[in-house]
């Protein structure tokens, strides 16, 4: 193990012991949460909410436009 901070100033074993295994930055960088496959229903929900958001932003822009006018 290496220390990128102040070498020799800390007990590296106690650092590892104090943290949960996946709290170490090295572990987080090496082990990523794998991607999941979205089901058809989930895709529909994702797109439906995306369309809702775009439409609603349109409504906000319309309101800002009419207020400014």
């Amino acid at each position, binding site marked *: 193990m*290496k220390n990128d901070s102040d070498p020799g100033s800390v007990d590296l074993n106690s*650092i590892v012991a104090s943290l949960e295994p996946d709290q170490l930055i090295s572990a987080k960088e090496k082990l990523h949460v794998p991607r999941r496959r979205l089901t058809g229903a989930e895709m529909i929900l994702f797109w439906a909410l995306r369309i809702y958001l775009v439409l609603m932003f349109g*409504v906000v822009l*319309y309101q*800002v436009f009419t207020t400014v006018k």
Partner: protein
Amino acid sequence: MTDSTPAPKPLRATPTDVLAATSSADVLITHEDIDRAHDRERVWHTRSQRGFRSRARLLWLLVGPGILVMLGENDGPSMLSYAATGARFGIGFFLPFVILTFLMACVVQEMTVRLGAATHRGHAELIFDRFGPFWGWFSMIDLMVGNFLTLVTEFIAIRAGLGFFGIPPFVSVLAAWLVLFAALMAHRYWTWERVTLLAAMFNLVFVPVALLTHPHWHAIGSALFTWKPLPGGLTQDTVLVLLADIGATVTPWMLFFQQSAIADKGLTTHDIRFGRFDTMIGAALAALAALATIIATAPLFAHGMAAGNFEAAEFAQALRPFVGQWGSTLFALGMFEAGMVAAVTISTSSAYAFGEVAHRPHSLNLPFRQGKSFYLVLILEAAAAAALVLIPGIPLVYIVLVVNVIAVLAMPPALLFLYMLVNDREIMGDLVSPRWANILALGVVIILIAAGLLFGISVVAPHALAGIGGS
């Protein structure tokens, strides 16, 4: 750790995985690891002791993200929305309504506590890893646009609050940006969190202002327990204020901030109970400040004063006959504080999200040299927002209300990601949401979508409001 969780096995790194990794010569123990380990050692040491004092110390060590996120969301636009609410509609409908919005915030933020403690990862990182960059970027764009607009409104509140004391806009905005910069100088999450918490407590300054108005306690009790109808019925104006008040308590940046802060603070599954308590304390304090603000400006409604387009300084001035010089001074300082604390927390939430997505170091434990991109995003975003506020002639109050509305509209897609992650047994193990939590979360989503649609109707077809109970 929940490594004893039965199948399906969580996708988090197990001790065996990490043992293999840490025995490698390539493993680097970073400055961030060391600082976090010191914090965790204090927690373990305190947890091993018995007695009330050690429990209280444990609570002190573990609270932070929940209180910060709730008081951080009692930001400039939120406090201006509450002030406008009290001044235009009084207390009858809105006191219980605001309590409902804080209950919704508790439901939502509790999920981020579990997610952050179980995965030790930020919200943006999990969305990118689990759903891929296509949906990840959508989520990031929502967050970044919302955060930037909200940051602009924080500087509006700062400018307006300090404007009460005759401080020129340029000086007030620059001073606030320098305070934000100074808050990062410790390069230590713990120090940053405690300093920001101390500043956030100043949000309660609205309570003495409310008391100075000599509120009618019987009317307040009656409003809280009987939930009076909306004065004037459902109109475009009232729908805008309704949404602004919802947007004052539940917004996307809160999800990203609290989960990332929990990961940065190093909370684990053992700390979830305290994380929930932290969130509830934060919600109670923030609700108290919100209710106090509505009560403080309610005399303007009672005296029929038109306060529709008041800025913070004008509210403070208009309140002077009711609360005196001290009361109006406290009100203006409260507005400044609300904007200042939120500017710190919101810009931090952007920096966390950027670091998680760009796979750059992202922690308040990082020295500037190692976390250059993290700190630069934080500082430059705030600087850009601060500069925008100096443009003369901007309709500040209107921007504030619209930004809160945008926050409400952006919430349902953000909540869908959160809902799916927190119900993902592969990453959460036994910590997936129980059925009751899912029912509450779906209830929040339905309320938010209904509010958004109501807003859409009020803008596109205002006459249709009469058909659904408006006037």
